């Protein structure tokens, strides 16, 4: 099925199997292997990318359903020569070990920061209140991204560092 998706700012037109997930489209068709397959069931968050600015588990959605959408994967966030402040912060805080969950953590962070800014509440937010940028809020909102090396404290430090940098 012919599908056109803008990936990292570039329109890509592909003839796709309707069974192909957005994740497999990125990894197998576009060779953008930054988004990872950790579980293929939306349980680990390693495949997180941004679709029209919102974070999404790309393994849980079919590519053909994203005709006309704008997708940003980790490759569109920054490059080795020009790291995004969140990528820089993950590096500086040693917020990863094996690195397999890292692209998902970083994309999730970007989506999460936007959600916070928009005042989207979480379980940690007091009813009716605007969410604060606290450790508890971030931990709650980043709990969809599993890190088995458990760089969790370092990830929180990186997110706080990046948020300061970006403010």
């Amino acid at each position, binding site marked *: 099925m012919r599908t056109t998706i803008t990936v990292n700012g570039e329109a890509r037109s592909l003839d796709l199997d309707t069974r192909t997930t957005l994740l497999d489209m990125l990894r197998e068709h576009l060779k953008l292997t930054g988004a990872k397959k950790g579980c293929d069931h939306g349980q680990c968050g390693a495949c997180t990318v941004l679709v029209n600015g919102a974070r999404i588990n790309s393994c849980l959605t079919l590519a053909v359903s994203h005709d006309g959408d704008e997708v940003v994967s980790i490759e569109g966030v920054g490059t080795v020569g020009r790291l995004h402040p969140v990528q820089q912060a993950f590096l500086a805080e040693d917020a*990863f070990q094996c690195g*397999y969950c890292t692209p998902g953590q970083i994309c999730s962070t970007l989506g999460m920061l936007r959600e916070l800014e928009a005042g989207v509440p979480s379980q940690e937010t007091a009813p009716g209140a605007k969410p604060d940028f606290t450790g508890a809020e971030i931990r709650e909102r980043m709990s969809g991204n599993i890190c088995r090396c*458990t760089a969790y404290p370092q990830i929180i430090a990186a997110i706080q560092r990046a948020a300061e940098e970006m403010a």
Partner: protein
Amino acid sequence: MTSVHDWDVTNPVKTNRTGLIGKAVERYEGPLKVTGTAPYAYEVQPPSPPAYGVMVGAAIAAGRITGADIAAAEASPGVLAVWTHLNVPKQAPRGTKAHPRSSAGSRPALEDERVAYFGQPVAFVIADTLENAVAASHLVKLTYDADAPDVDFLARLDEAGQPPGEQDVEIGDFAAGFAAAAVQVDGTWTTPIQNHCQMEPCASLVWFEGDKCIAHTSVQMVKPAQHGLAETIGIPRDNVHLMTRYIGGGFGGKGQTYDDLTLAALGAKALGRPVKVAFTRQQMMHGTVHRPATVQRVRLGASRDGTLDAMSMMTWTHCHKGGNFTEHASNFCRALYAAPNRLTGHRLVRLDLPAAGAMRAPGEASGTMSLECAMDELAEKLGLDPLELRIRNEPAVDPENGRPFSMRQLVRCLKEGAQLFGWDRRLPTPGQVRDGRWLVGMGMAAAIRGNFLLPAKCSFTVEPDGTIVVRQGMTDIGTGTYTVLAQIAAETLAVPLGQVRVEIGDSELPPAPGSGGQFGAATAGSAALMAGMKLRTAIAELATGDPGSPLHAGAPDEVTFQDGVIAISNRSETLSDLIRRAAPDGLTVEGEVRPAQDAQQWSTQTYGSHFVEVGVDPVTGEVRVRRMLGVFAAGRILNAATARSQLTGGMIWGAASALTEANPVDVRYGSFLNQDLAQYLVPVQADIGEVDAIMLDEVDDKANPMGIKGVGELGNSGAGAAVANAVYNACGVRVRDYPITPDKLLAGLIAQGR
């Protein structure tokens, strides 16, 4: 013959002139990882489009396959091959070692009609796309003659026997010592089966270039993977070029390869095109090794002053039929506390379960969960602070073998940890501290893990532009190998870090044992230091022997190295000028490290202390880990950031072992109940509060030429016990059957009348 005294001489790591050793430098491969451009095995781009392989797992735990109908799968769109044991290409019989020095024998996939465990790969489909392969895999129809699975560990304890070649270790007379002790603790703890759940499922990509098999896989040890594949598919070892450059977590579970590698290789050979195969998350649970369950009986007998008179740890555990893997949960305690009468040992049951194997801190992770809680119970009976009980039982020499400790700072870890954590605020009577709906408690435990040095090689090359290239068949599973090798090279050759390139994870590079047992940095790093020292000598000799060098005719041992410049007093040139002129192809040397033969004269361990604060909701039984602090003594630290990350990672792993992680066996079907990450509960961000790890200054000159030790397992050792002890201090309930889930806590709270 090597002696630890050979290591007494100074070296650049010890002098650390530029201060790189120990510095928290950013990960060498970090920029690739944060940009998603580090290619893990499945992501390497092969020379031509790959075909996709999908494995089909057995639906029974024991028995045999009686029929295979593959016609529908073969007729499915895009399918290139469908194999079962009936038509899989020929492989060498299991265990074959055509080359007598192979470090692994043949391990054929789809071997025969027998099924040894639930989920065992029994069919394999290759298709042009992943979607076509998955669809066809559902069409493979197998029929079975199933046996009743023999998987009920607790029901089989009576039949447990000594692991092969092992005996119980008794010092003094345990029974008499225990019987005569004034205060006793006698308890049985159980730990469950756990899964590694590395974020990257095992995966392999293989293609052939002529006779040469190019294999990318995700494995912690390179040589056994290369040798095992060559033996299995029956080609010379040198014809397998195996690479594992980026590994999405190992934790022991990738200490061996699995059928994904064999089947990818057989597929690539049969089809003449690249084939890649990945485990699904569900397949990982059964298809790769797990940490086996244990039953541990701990008996402690002490005098009224807290001196241990007798201690015993006996562990029952399980492995698969035909296997010998033993979770040595009792071993660590042999070096931990003094007691004149001691008894330790293990019993093993073989079951129709998947193979058990090493998982983070094998032995200690399970064993500390009992002993360190038993110590807490003993302290309570004695009316002693649990910290003080441990200090009173600090041995002067290794209590098991009488050897001196190479270095032991356990008491310092305990005392400094207590001070930093605010241990003095702990109330000894449980259930006294409230914070809103939470009952708050504190717990502590000691940490110990042995330290090893294995044989390894490494090559160093200086290229004409002055770049130092480190090459080693070592792996980085997230531990920081790339980074610490670069630090050692830069410090040894006195070049900027940016002037070092590290190439690892490749069977064609000088062999190293890989990542495991926290021996990686010490082993690989020591070989790197040796190679660096040899390269210094080779460079000095090249310069002083070269008429074109300003250093010509000087004494090689007077050559100094600094900032990429070599000099003898005021005569100098850059490394790149020398190499470009005198060795235009570069200069390469190989270094090697071997264990010292007299190292066994010392008991060499790493140590630590854990302090944990938890909240327990007495209404729901929910436990929250609020604070964790670990203080560790593990020799010289090569990189403060990567070492700390390993330690905090181990601590969190331990917290999850105490509270959530378990995979019960469904004894009806011989399968694990939890088959994905929604059911098997690894910790997530919201589970973990403040965590910090502190490393004491230490140099252990008996460990290796650098005086470093490992940290990868240490952080896990004792962490779960500290959580369990904190839960007790919070609410007065001791749960000896891990994990401490709300149902078990609630039962205890109700029994207390809370």
